[in-house]
């Protein structure tokens, strides 16, 4: 069972106070299959992609070292670069998927699909606590639920990517 970009967009739409959602890279279907033409590189390193979903633009960032993928609201006009090769982008995505598997370990999550909505810092300054919302996706109900299980702290540590 995996998540799709559509599921991530639903979470962002459901909770407008948050600008991004972080998930484990190996949980995202779009990263587990050959890179689709709907993902267009935004940088030469192959870490950021423009993703269009129902005529709306989103940015998908890959963090290969942490095994995390972040989908963010992306209001800018698409400035797509053609410099990155498919092999480079595919390599980073593959590294992110592998890192995610390592982070999670064998059976640690029991197949749970986790997502962390990321909002602004509470005090407005860098380094301060920030607004997040820990979620788990219920595939049977097709809905996100709040996650307050025993792995909450671990999940926040693993998924919270401090990127601008």
């Amino acid at each position, binding site marked *: 069972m995996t998540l799709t970009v559509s599921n991530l967009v639903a979470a962002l739409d*459901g909770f407008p106070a948050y600008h991004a959602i972080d998930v484990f890279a190996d949980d995202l279907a779009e990263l587990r299959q050959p890179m689709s033409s709907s993902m267009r590189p935004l940088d030469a390193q192959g870490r950021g992609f423009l993703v269009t979903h129902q005529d709306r633009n989103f940015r998908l960032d890959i963090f290969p070292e942490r095994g995390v993928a972040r989908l963010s609201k992306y209001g800018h006009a698409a400035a797509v670069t053609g410099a990155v090769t498919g092999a480079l982008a595919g390599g980073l995505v593959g590294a992110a998927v592998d890192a995610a598997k390592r982070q999670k370990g064998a059976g640690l999550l029991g197949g749970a699909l986790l997502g962390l909505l990321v909002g602004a810092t509470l005090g407005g300054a860098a380094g301060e606590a920030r607004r997040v919302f*820990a979620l788990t996706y219920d595939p049977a109900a097709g809905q996100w639920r709040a996650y*307050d299980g025993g792995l*909450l702290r671990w999940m*926040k540590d693993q998924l919270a990517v401090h990127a601008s």
Partner: protein
Amino acid sequence: MASSGPTATPLLTEPQIEVIVQRYLREMARFEKTASAVADRLRRELRAEGHLRYMLSFRAKHPEDLRGKLRRKSNDRDVRYNFDALMEIGEVVTDLAGCRVVVYSVPDEERVTELVRRAFALPDRGDARPPPIRRPSGYQATHTLVLAPEAQDDTSIRGSICEVQVATVAAHLFNELEHDIAYKKLGHDATAPETRLLASVERACKLADHVVEQLLDERARGRARLVSLSDPAELRLALEQAVGHPLTGDFARLFKMLDTVVDPLTAAALEQLGKPNELLARGQAEATKLGLQADDVTAYVLGILPEYKAEFALIAAHWRGPKTALRRAIQSGVRRGAKIEQTTGSNDDDVDG
């Protein structure tokens, strides 16, 4: 221990002082080794404490400093410093081997002294562990006489005494100046302006000690505010400290709720959510409007509910078990908020996510 005025005959003659200094010179290596061994052990102990900041130095007394000390004591007719007793010089002059620990604050001076007295064997003598020294001259430190640590491969320093001085960095500044100007009388007797200025330095150093202590207390409080609250009891304590009185309610539930929506959950983060007293008052007012009896946790949740409506509604929707007052309060609060928004025409998010 002086027995008469400065005009009395000195206790020691210059040839006697020379004999004692020469004798010390022959033994000096042992005192250096003693001081070094005590410093090594002390450094390990201080490192093990982890949080203490310090500067550590050690030395064997310089022979000329010993000569000066013998002359002063002799002139003061300090009867402990008689020639026969000084044949066992280490028993009389207890600072021939010395270690000094300079710390930031007076509480650290106490902590390090406690550590020294715990970590080392002390000689069986009445002056081994005196109280902190606060002389009228302004000198301020805590001294302890310790025995050289036992080493299996070296018995040469066994039983040797080392004086460990602990002082704050501000006191150390004054102590050094006072030692050079007033105690040793280096060069010339202190003039009146020098004495006045030295007194000013003393006051400045005492003020520095006081302010540094306040600063370090504030730093400790600041650090504590940034450490993640690890369980409901810590959350309760942080909120109770913020409001200044005990609080009631289901803190296990509140801890899970806040941990789900704040990263990291710290005392500082709680302050950024809003002043707890104001949030509690706002929540109690909201509970009254909803016709609910609210404990403190329920009132707090109602206080921050306007910011976290969608999240708390989703969290409470999946709570198992009977419908608690907290769950009713969240659901009533969210419904009331939605009605207000409908009547005012505001367009907010879907609470079901």
